[in-house]
């Protein structure tokens, strides 16, 4: 029971990690919560659904993030950069509006019913280990989630651009005086965040479903995670996503009637103990 609970928590957390770390990255750099991030995830899922039908799951898993990265670049160049001197709430509302429009456009083209995506044959079925029988696809999902965490940490800690992202997140004016072009970095980060949303969207197809409400469900979860993690903190977001996944899954097993409230209870409990969240600051803290 407990190993299954942990595995299911990790599977859910994997999707949430990819989404919330992207959200935290943009917040760290631009000081803006991208309320349209859930719609990017939904776009990634629907694109993945369409591409998988034509060319298969693996092509979708590569193509959808690339297309989403281009959408992220457009978001940066057409929205975040021109509005960077406007107040945070104004920019956040613009991203919310764009997210709603994108969601409605997808519903217009795909209809209101939920769609399912089959896992590829190589990831179908289950494996049994240590007395636990578990779907291979969910193990794959956990692997991708944890790998994305590791790659993100390596990039931020050991690359020049990662160092610059951390610097701009902490002290944008000092970073600027050192010759760092924050706009160029922001293009990279927004594209990367959108690509991660694309990966999460494609992976969600066979795990959950592709449906019109998935953007709202995801952005609400991500906002809770980012606040619990300490706004803008990626390690905080990762820990918060793991906590969220566990609370959500454990809640649905032990208290199914109250499971929907479990994340909010977690949010309140964490904020009562640590009002600024788990993380200590921006990006890597």
């Amino acid at each position, binding site marked *: 029971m407990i190993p299954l609970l942990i595995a299911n928590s990790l599977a859910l957390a994997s999707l949430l990690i990819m989404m919330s770390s992207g959200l935290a990255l943009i917040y760290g750099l631009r000081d803006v919560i991208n309320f349209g991030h859930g719609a990017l995830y939904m776009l990634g899922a629907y694109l993945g659904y369409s591409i998988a039908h034509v060319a298969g799951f693996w092509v979708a898993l590569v193509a959808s993030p690339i297309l989403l990265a281009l959408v992220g670049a457009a978001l940066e160049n057409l929205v975040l950069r021109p509005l960077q001197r406007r107040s945070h709430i104004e920019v956040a509302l613009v991203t919310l509006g764009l997210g709603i429009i994108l969601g409605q456009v997808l519903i217009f083209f795909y209809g209101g019913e939920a769609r399912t995506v089959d896992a590829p044959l190589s990831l179908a079925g289950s494996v049994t280990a240590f007395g636990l029988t578990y779907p291979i696809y969910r193990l794959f999902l956990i692997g991708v989630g944890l790998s994305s965490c590791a790659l993100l940490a390596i990039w931020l800690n050991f690359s020049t651009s990662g160092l610059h992202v*951390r610097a701009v997140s*902490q002290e944008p004016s000092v970073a600027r*005086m*050192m*010759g*760092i072009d924050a706009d160029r970095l922001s293009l990279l980060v927004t594209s990367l965040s959108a690509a991660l949303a694309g990966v999460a969207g494609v992976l969600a197809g066979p795990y959950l479903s592709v449906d019109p409400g998935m953007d709202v469900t995801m952005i609400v979860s991500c906002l809770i995670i980012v606040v619990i993690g300490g706004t803008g903190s990626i390690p905080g977001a990762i820990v918060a996503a793991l906590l969220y996944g566990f609370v959500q899954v454990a809640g649905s097993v032990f208290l199914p009637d109250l499971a929907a409230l479990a994340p909010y209870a977690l949010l309140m409990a964490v904020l009562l103990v640590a009002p600024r969240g788990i993380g200590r*600051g921006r990006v890597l803290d």
Partner: protein
Amino acid sequence: MSALKMQALYAGYGASTVLHGVDLEIGKGESVAIVGRNGAGKSTLLMSVFRETNILSGEIWVGGARIDGLPGYSAAKLGVAIAPQGRRILPNLSIRENLLLGAATRRPGRWNLRTVFDLFPALEQRANSGGMMLSGGQQQMLAIGRALMANPDLLLLDEPSEGLSPLLVDDLVRALDEIRRAGTGILVVEQHLSLVRRATDRFVILSKGEVVGAAPTAEIDDPRHQTLMAL
């Protein structure tokens, strides 16, 4: 060609104008001090090079390029680096990472991690510690080292002796001498004249956002200049 030139520069913060038509020219390899009372606009003058102020009118040139209309990061890329007031060390980065930040311009030249560590050995000993673990003097070395990593033609220093003991100011003067010998010019904003006397060729007096005097450093104790500095 000058390392930095300002012509009729008006700049400030928000609705407030701090600099009123500043003209200033720093030659390559020169060491110049900006002196004046608190609130004279000395730091604003330095910050304007990086567009950290509102530039209302006038021109700023770095090398042969006019930069007052360019993004703030352009000055560093063109060869001006700064050790800002208060050092502004990034607390969550290690000393090594703080230094590497200065190399963002990728300008070639003498200064790299090795040569900066040779100049400030205390930084090498604690290279992997957090920047805020350093004493005030060491933080100043880190701020200067970070600026040198950009291999600038001109190094701007904003109140570098602030909070330092006389012994540490001596170390700072020695380091500035070595930096000048390496061919890097210096523009230093200072209230303490002991550093100005020992580390600069000439000084410019700023009062209420205007240049009101300038002379070789040897004349800094002249009562006429002292009067202007007190304005």
